[in-house]
């Protein structure tokens, strides 16, 4: 009898101890990073974020195409965001949810609240995580990406060399200006 009483008391307590953190995490109140930022924006502005279909596939393709320069691409799009967005409030909201390690490097804001941009960065070994929150009138995009500067630099240089070569091939006019400039 006493044993069954113990079960009756300790079993619910044990379940509560196990389930409470899981429920809180599921509610999105205590997480950090991309998901937490998106959930925070959704709940504050009563909006729903659309996640791009096949994003994992797109991210994988981007990773292969850039030789690992870009990976971990995540995009959430919130359309029809009603009402003006207070820049200071959005800034505080993102700062609250983004979590440790992320540092805001750029913030652009307009007085009317229609245009807001926040860019956070997080160095991670040789890679850099970037989180962008961009509001353009009634549409907000949240993008997270992980970049490897060295690989990305190689890819960019590859194209800039092509561009430079093409530019060098253009003979300058008599006045010293590239003929391409006059086109």
């Amino acid at each position, binding site marked *: 009898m006493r044993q069954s009483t113990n079960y009756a008391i300790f079993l619910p307590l044990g379940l509560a101890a196990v389930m409470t953190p899981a429920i809180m995490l599921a509610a999105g109140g205590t997480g950090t990073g991309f998901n937490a930022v998106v959930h925070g924006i959704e709940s504050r502005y009563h909006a729903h974020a659309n996640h791009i279909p096949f994003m994992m596939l797109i991210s994988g393709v981007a990773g292969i195409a850039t030789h690992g320069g870009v990976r971990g691409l995540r995009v959430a799009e919130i359309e029809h965001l009603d009402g003006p967005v207070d820049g200071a409030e959005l800034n505080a909201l993102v700062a609250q949810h983004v979590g440790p390690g992320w540092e805001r490097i750029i913030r652009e804001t307009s007085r009317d609240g229609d*245009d807001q941009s926040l860019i956070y960065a997080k160095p991670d070994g040789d890679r850099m995580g970037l989180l962008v929150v961009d509001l353009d009138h009634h549409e907000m995009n949240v993008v997270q990406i992980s970049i490897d500067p060295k690989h990305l630099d190689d890819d960019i240089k590859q194209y800039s060399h092509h561009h430079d070569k093409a530019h060098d091939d253009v003979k300058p006019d008599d006045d010293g200006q590239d003929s391409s400039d006059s086109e």
Partner: protein
Amino acid sequence: MKRFGVWASALGSGLALGIAVTGAASAVAQDQLPAPSPIEKTLAERATHVTEVTLDKNMLAFAAKFMDKDEDKDDQEAKDMIRNLKGVYVREYEFDKDHSYTAEELEGLRKYFESTDWSPMVHERTKGVAEGTDVYLKLVDGHIQGLFVLDAEAKELSLVLILGPVDLDKISSLGGTFGIPKDAVKSVKKAQKEAGK
């Protein structure tokens, strides 16, 4: 008597520790980027468009990695300068009306960013209006350890604070990067030229 000696030594140790901690904290504060001035908040409320760029030492060291493969010697020197910087702090305020800021606010901003190590390099004023350019250098043992530019135009106000060892000959490489306006770099080059006369 012995008891007094114990208390005196404890007090002395406490004071020494206090001074050491305060000195260290002060040195750190000198190297760290400042918290926004209260004036900046009021300017931001009036501005139609505000851009804020804040890069600490870690971010700058990481940014220098982007240029790791530059073979050009000048680029290499510029990269070394960026890697050794301790912080970059840029604020740009755009207004829809001319002179949406006052001379007192500009003075407040100068005072906020100044400290004993900062020396004025140039003060350029436009007569009759609160416009002008100020360039300050932070000199430590004769070496430039920081640069502050306050550029006030009719509809635009820019603050640029660069902490760390700055090579004025390489400062052009920073114009247009890290949110540093090219005009601010031009002001520094102009001030440097005038100082050399």
